[in-house]
């Protein structure tokens, strides 16, 4: 998920593993173009590795790629969103802390990006699921102050409390961003019916921007730091000489959607 040069030939690579969570290892010779390990330790590669105990960091002794995720190497939008997912996991998890659920979510989400499923939907689903797994699940149905069911109207989201305030309790916050009815509906669809239902929704550009800004600001609040990947992705794809990112048509999900339209 990240890598840095250790010296002329070697790299320190950060992996995300089912048994040890975030896990930094030494890959000897990986900076040399002739390295046999190098290609297996590329960003976002799903690989099976053999390790040897080292003094400070363990050392990779063998590697076999399970999925190279080629689309993430050639498509800048898929690359940018995969980077964002890696960044979220890097910033929100601790080194050597097992989190098999987050691991499986990451593996599944990277595979979906590689299969060209709509990166917007895959990424929002990933974010919501990661928040839930790590204990930051936003309350999407009830007012966090009085507990009343939220009505179909724009409501302010209070990041520090992880939920919305109803019109009666709204005076308790100032400066919390309002989330539109459609943005709230989209999040509830993801939450209730999963990614399969979300990829079938037509999400106009403005709503995409609103939802991305919402999850980004909540993630920033949780991690207490800025995330870079989506900003860089926008700079790369919205920049000069490029056409604006297309909205509209989402490729269908690779599995049947479980049921209903948004609630």
């Amino acid at each position: 998920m990240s890598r840095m040069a250790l010296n002329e030939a070697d790299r320190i690579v950060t992996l995300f593993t089912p048994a040890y969570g975030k896990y930094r290892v030494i890959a000897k010779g990986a900076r040399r173009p002739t390295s046999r390990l190098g290609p297996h330790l590329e960003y976002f590669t799903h690989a099976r590795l053999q390790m040897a105990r080292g003094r400070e960091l363990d050392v990779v002794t063998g590697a076999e790629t399970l999925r190279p995720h080629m689309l993430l190497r050639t498509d800048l939008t898929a690359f940018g969103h995969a980077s964002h997912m890696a960044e979220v996991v890097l910033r929100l998890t601790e080194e050597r802390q097992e989190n098999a659920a987050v691991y499986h979510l990451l593996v599944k989400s990277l595979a979906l990006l590689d299969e060209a499923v709509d990166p917007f939907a895959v990424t929002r689903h990933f974010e919501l699921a990661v928040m839930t797994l790590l204990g930051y699940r936003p309350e999407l149905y009830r007012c966090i102050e009085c507990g009343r069911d939220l009505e179909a109207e724009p409501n302010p989201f209070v990041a520090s409390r992880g939920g919305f305030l109803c019109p009666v309790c709204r005076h308790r916050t100032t400066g919390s961003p309002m989330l539109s009815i459609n943005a709230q509906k989209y999040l509830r669809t993801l939450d209730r019916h999963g990614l399969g239902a979300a990829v079938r929704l037509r999400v106009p550009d403005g709503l995409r921007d609103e939802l991305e800004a919402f999850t980004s600001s909540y993630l920033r609040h949780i991690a207490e730091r800025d995330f870079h990947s989506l900003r860089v992705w926008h700079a790369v794809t919205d920049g000069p000489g490029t056409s604006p990112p297309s909205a509209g048509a989402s490729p269908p999900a690779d599995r049947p959607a479980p049921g209903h339209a948004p609630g």
Partner: protein
Amino acid sequence: MSLQRRSSATAPPVARLIDELGKLPGIGAKTASRLAYHVLRASREDAVALAEAILDVKERIVLCGVCFNTTEEDPCSICRDPTRDASICVVQEPLDVVALERTGQLKGKYHVLHGAISPVEGIGPDRLKIQELLRRVSQEDPGEIILATNLDITGEATATYLHRLLVPLGVTVTRPASGLPVGGDLEYADEVTLGRALAGRRPL
């Protein structure tokens, strides 16, 4: 823990040297103290020579205002060389220029980006010498641009992005396609492999 143990047992000037050396890439705490004690045992002349070499590099080496390679004179000797053709080979780091020059395959000039697009690290196009490249291309009419960024995912993303920006400017954009395994750093490729990859470059 080791830091505390060291600060109580180590004279402050030595501790300071260890701390400074430890900031260098690839130098861990152990290597830093080994190097520091090596300097401590070395002759005064050797120590002064090292210190002067470090200062010299900061005071005398600048970036070429045309290609952004490191140089003693601006523009650099490659940019001033009238026997070179107008083609531009785009690389990530100054060391890549050294590696490519060793192959003797390229007759043109270079452009050093000083990195690659890396979203996770927050490195976007604005952090690289990309606007400068576009300006050069419109002024110099280079004919061919060789994108010799690394063959790993960030190098590929950078090449994809540059390709998109360069094609409308009416230049031929090529990339050393085959021969180099994926994932390595260009500067460590041997010159035979690198030369072969350059000779076999293809339009993107």
